[in-house]
């Protein structure tokens, strides 16, 4: 049973990726920041676009729009900096979003077995059914994914 199964009303942040809206549990959100310079260096994790600097800390930028909507974002309005638990530590990832974000409190419906791994739960808001995202399944570097070899030989810089 996931953490979300046990809870009814939860605070969530709605985010926009192109034409669609998604949600993240509010407790996972560190901050919403204006786009800043993305620093790029050679690496082999294709989901990572580069890194941004926030208060002297390096935060990887992970564009999840293509995975979720099939299209890359054409404009980045903000970076939603979210936290992920990795064992005893917490790390951050910056998700580019294309519109305003909204904090809501809403009842959640737990994800079913047939749902994609990136769906942690569902919520209904303004007549729209919205996926609550499971960041661990959506972004690279979860414990299971560490050091898996890549097929693509070229580096991303």
């Amino acid at each position: 049973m996931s953490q979300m199964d046990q809870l009814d009303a939860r605070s969530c942040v709605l985010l926009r990726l192109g034409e669609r809206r998604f949600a993240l549990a509010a407790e996972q959100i560190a901050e919403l920041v204006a786009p800043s310079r993305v620093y790029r260096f050679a690496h082999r994790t294709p989901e990572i676009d580069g890194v941004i600097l926030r208060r002297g800390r390096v935060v990887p930028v992970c564009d999840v729009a293509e995975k979720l909507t099939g299209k890359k974002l054409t404009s980045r309005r903000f970076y939603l900096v979210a936290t992920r638990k990795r064992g005893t530590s917490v790390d951050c990832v910056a998700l580019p979003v294309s519109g305003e974000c909204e904090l809501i409190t809403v009842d959640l419906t737990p994800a079913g077995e047939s749902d994609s791994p990136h769906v942690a739960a569902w919520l209904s808001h303004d007549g729209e059914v919205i996926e609550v995202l499971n960041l661990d399944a959506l972004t690279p570097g979860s414990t299971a994914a560490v050091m898996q070899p890549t097929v693509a030989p070229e580096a991303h810089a």
Partner: protein
Amino acid sequence: MQLATAHKAPAVRTEQIILFRSSGQVFAISSASVQEVRAVDGLAGSPQAINEPSLPKVRHMFRRGESNLYVVHAGLHFGLRQTPASLIFLLRKLRTALLIDGIEKMTTMTRLQALPGAFCHEERLWYRGLTVLDQSVIPVVNPAGFLTDDELFVLDAAASRLMAPEAPPAGEMDLSV
């Protein structure tokens, strides 16, 4: 009378690094891990061509004492486009020489940040971490990450085939690419 104890701020731990360019990108390496810096045409010994198809980043080797040293093209190692290299770093306590485009400068870093966990492939072996210098993020390379033990084993096997008496003699090679 008792004198007040002077409180000293803890000394900031620093590390000397060399910023170098390879294939248009800047990397940092600890200066302590670089034993020598040579121009490609000023290398003592006779570099020999080595052709190991599984390791295109290594095209030359040379003898130093009893050991073979393998020249790794830094840009190819990082999967970047090939550019003409002009300098070689001989790495301390390793059998690796690193072919680079040039040195930017020597400087000091005060903080090495761990590579964020979202980077989860070979770059975890490539880099010790990241440092921030003049509002830029610079990857700090792991000297031992240029050639793994398995790669050295493969290269040693290729080198021994090269040295075998039946092999055609290999002349001096131009290391420039």
